[in-house]
């Protein structure tokens, strides 16, 4: 037994000595290639994942046994012409680089259907569509009358009248509509026939949204209003140079929260106030715990200039964005000013620390994750890259499929832009929407919502195949 044990032991030791380095080297991409010059070569990997899955992979014109999601390994460094075939979908193709020891990953390929699936959700000749950013609610309207507004909840497929027929304010004309990111509440500015302007507060998460008339809390016409979803019914209005706090639940007005301000923003239970000289401070809702974030007036002046108001948008724990009246986009990161003018809208990709911004004619990505500071000769600030240029009138833009794509509307046409790590983005036209109306995309359902150009119906179009499918509630 002892001899047997020793023999087996030494055989296993030998196995380990031989196999361990080989397996570890293989894990790093090294393979034995007797016919090549170096005999042992370091290879790379191509990884594909598509929606829907099951596309056949062609490499340099030759079909492989793999279907997506799949990994092609043991590839020598170089460029590979890749084509992905799936029935009923357009062919996806690209030339991809493979580097030694590295993985070229395309984990979020959206195959474009030859015929996109659409579904009519609410019939009616709607004239406009707006959405509550960061929520699943969108509003469609047949006319400017408040009673003609309908609310649609994308995940539950529920529809309600914004203000039911027969209820007060239904005949009022909607002048403006204020929303806040991730909040299901809406502030409506309406005017009843022949009467003074009113301010109405509605919570769309309620089954029949209750309407609160909070006109008394508005001594002046606000230039803009801001609040946060977790703010407990506190909203902040900016009028003239002052900021007021309104407690909706208590129906209380706290005027002069900030007497002299050029900007306001709310996030994480803090109110951010930009002073006329450009200094920035934060405080809680009770104005306690004031924290001076920027005190250097000279620096503040060079960033914010001497005039102009800014909306303050705390993006993450460390990054604060500022959008100016002329469409400036600033941040508390070098070089501070990223867009001089013309920014129409922004969308966030918090996990990847990126901001999608669009102007009338172009779309860009501001990437805060590329920032390099500290022990380097030249510090590197966040990068702004324009991914689409030459547009006519870009309206809305959305991150799609875990921010691997951008869906946007230019005039009446909607496009899907695939953000490629390798080479220029690829763009596909999705469809045409009703003239001068907005669109909405829900990552939860994988559907785009729009008004059909011929009927005006609220319609959905499948963007991520197979993701939608929640049953409609009766």
């Amino acid at each position, binding site marked *: 037994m002892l001899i047997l044990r020793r023999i*087996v*032991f030494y055989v*296993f030791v030998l196995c380990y000595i031989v196999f361990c380095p080989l397996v570890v080297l293989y*894990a790093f991409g090294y393979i034995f290639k007797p016919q090549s010059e170096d005999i042992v070569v370091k290879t790379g*990997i191509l990884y594909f994942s598509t929606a829907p899955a099951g596309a056949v992979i062609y490499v340099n014109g030759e079909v492989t046994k793999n279907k997506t999601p799949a990994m092609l*390994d043991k590839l020598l460094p170089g460029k590979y012409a890749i084509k992905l075939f799936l029935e009923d979908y357009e062919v996806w193709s690209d030339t991809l680089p493979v580097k030694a*020891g590295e*993985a070229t990953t395309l984990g979020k390929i959206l195959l474009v259907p030859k015929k996109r699936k659409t579904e009519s959700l609410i019939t009616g000749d709607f004239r406009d569509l707006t959405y509550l950013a960061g929520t699943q609610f969108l509003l469609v309207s047949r006319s400017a009358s408040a009673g003609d507004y309908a609310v649609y909840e994308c995940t539950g497929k529920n529809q309600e009248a914004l203000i039911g027929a027969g209820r007060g304010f239904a005949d009022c004309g909607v002048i403006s509509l204020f929303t806040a990111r991730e909040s299901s509440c809406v502030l409506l500015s309406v005017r009843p026939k022949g009467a003074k302007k009113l301010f109405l507060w509605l919570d769309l998460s309620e089954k029949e949204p209750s309407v609160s008339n909070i006109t008394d809390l508005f001594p002046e016409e606000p230039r803009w209003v801001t609040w946060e979803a977790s703010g407990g019914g506190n909203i902040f209005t900016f009028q003239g140079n002052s900021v007021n706090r309104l407690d909706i639940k208590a129906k209380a007005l706290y005027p002069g929260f900030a007497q002299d301000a050029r900007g306001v923003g709310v996030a994480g239970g803090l109110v951010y106030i930009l002073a006329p000289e450009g200094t920035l401070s934060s405080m809680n809702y009770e104005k306690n715990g004031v924290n001076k974030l920027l005190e250097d007036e000279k620096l503040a002046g060079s960033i914010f200039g001497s005039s102009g108001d800014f909306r303050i948008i705390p993006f993450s724990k460390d990054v604060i964005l500022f959008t100016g009246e002329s469409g400036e986009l600033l941040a508390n990161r070098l070089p501070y000013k990223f867009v001089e003018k013309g920014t129409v809208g922004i969308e966030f990709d918090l996990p990847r620390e990126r901001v999608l911004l669009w102007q009338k004619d172009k779309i860009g990505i501001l990437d805060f994750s590329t920032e390099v500071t500290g022990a380097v000769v030249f510090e590197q600030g966040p990068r702004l890259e324009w991914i689409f240029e030459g547009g006519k009138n870009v309206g809305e833009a959305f991150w799609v499929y875990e921010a691997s794509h951008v869906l946007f509307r230019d005039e009446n046409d909607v496009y899907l832009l695939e953000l490629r790590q390798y080479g220029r983005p690829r763009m596909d036209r999705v469809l045409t929407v009703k003239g001068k109306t907005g669109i909405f995309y829900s990552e939860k359902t994988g559907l785009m919502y729009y008004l059909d150009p011929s009927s005006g119906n609220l319609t959905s179009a499948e963007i991520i195949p197979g993701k939608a499918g929640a049953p409609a509630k009766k």
Partner: protein
Amino acid sequence: MKFNFSKYGIKGGEKALERFLEIIPGLTSWTVIVGMFILALAKPVIAAAIIIAFLIYWFLKLAYLTIFLIISYFRLSIEKDTNWMKRARGVNAPEVFIKALRSASSEAPFAKKLSDYFCRKRLEVLTKNGVKPPPLEDIYHLVIIPIAKETPDIVEPGIKSIADGTFPPEKILVILAVEERAQVDVKKGAADIRAKYRGRFLDLLVNMHKDGLRGEARVKGANASVAAKVAAEYFKTRSVSFENVIVSCFDSDTVVNPQYFACLTYSFMTCPDRTRSSFQPIPVYYNNIWDVPGFARVLETGSSFFQLIEATNPEQLVTFSSHSMSFKALVDVGYWPVDMISDDSAIFWKSYIHFDGKYRVVPMYTTVSMDIVVANTWWKTIVNEYKQKRRWAWGVENFPIVVRAFLKDKKISLFTKMRLVLKLFEGHISWATWAFLLTVIVWLPPLFGGRHFQKSVLYYSAPRIDAIIFNLASFSLITSIILSICLLPKQKMKHPFLRRIVFAVQWLLIPVIILFLSAIPALDAQTRLMLGKRLEFWVAPKKKE
């Protein structure tokens, strides 16, 4: 070599060395776990490569152990029907017996033929070396059963199994070594057992071990040592040579195989260095196996497997749990350590050092069955299992003492010393760390590797390689499941097939069990030793349905 096999009674540099060596196992285990954790977060590429190298090592070791588990299992199966008493009688006249074995019927089953072959080979070695075995008639057994809390319902089945064995009980002296601090019903129970079984044995003594004797800790070894000294006087007065006495120190719940003492006698008689040997049976935990939760069943079956594998490696075998040894050796080395919890393994190391490495453990392919620790509730059973495994892992207390002894010893070869220390050290470190590496740390590099790592080939290849290794290792798990079912005692019960299937499925709990009821108790024991804390001897509660 004369050596104080204790951490007490040492001074100066030796004390400092002992303390330093106490820190080493715990520090190493923590360094491995924390180091790999930090490495997985800070340098995921290096961590992933190390994990692959470790998994290959783990798989090969698993495969290696599985091979010997299978071999050992078959060896145990072969000897299942062996008439050890007949063999022991045969050893009295080895040449005749060898001839008889040679001329045995060719129609005998293969297992019997193989068993006869092993027996013949053993006798041939004995006769070749000119070693004369002692006559069977001169051999006596001493059985010491330390009792602290155990009542007769726990102790009596073991006594009965000894009395009912094939070896004549009138050649067996049994001592119930009762702690004086034990409850009245425990003491009364011992007295009742004495009254009931005394007539069947050479004698059955009840010895009260006084509490708090100078130099003693509250450990089993102290109680057993006092009982052994009583037995020494007993044999001396009856002019029985210690050379012909085999002592077995059993846990109070130990139920021996009917053939145990016959097999032990045969093993003793055929062992050339019988007075410098211990004899290790295969411990199994079948007394209450169907009355305990599944995790406890799987855990203890794993312990039996470990001992089955160890049985194939007598060169490095260390005594564990209930075992036997030469009484002369025990007396020569000064009995069991009286201040150590791990008396079962400590007595081997004490003897090995005392005899300058000329001491060995002889594996025996017979079983002793014990209870699985159990309590009234599921949670309490987990706690008791945890405490028992921590007590077993406290065997790490041998490490500093053994290393200290080896540094002093000049007669044992450096290679042997290195090999044994390495095995002792590696055994305890792997006990405490492997489960963490296999169940937790292996997943960290892909989860927390960061973008740079995610762009590497390693990010994609490492999980694939890990998965292949885990899949290959599952063959070992399947083997264990099959063998565990084969080993189970045949017992009358409801739905036996279904219960065996459930038992097989329970093996899937192994990743959780090895982490929480094996690795963490071991790490706990090592950490206590590292921090200079003591572990009180904890008497595992036993319960019978």
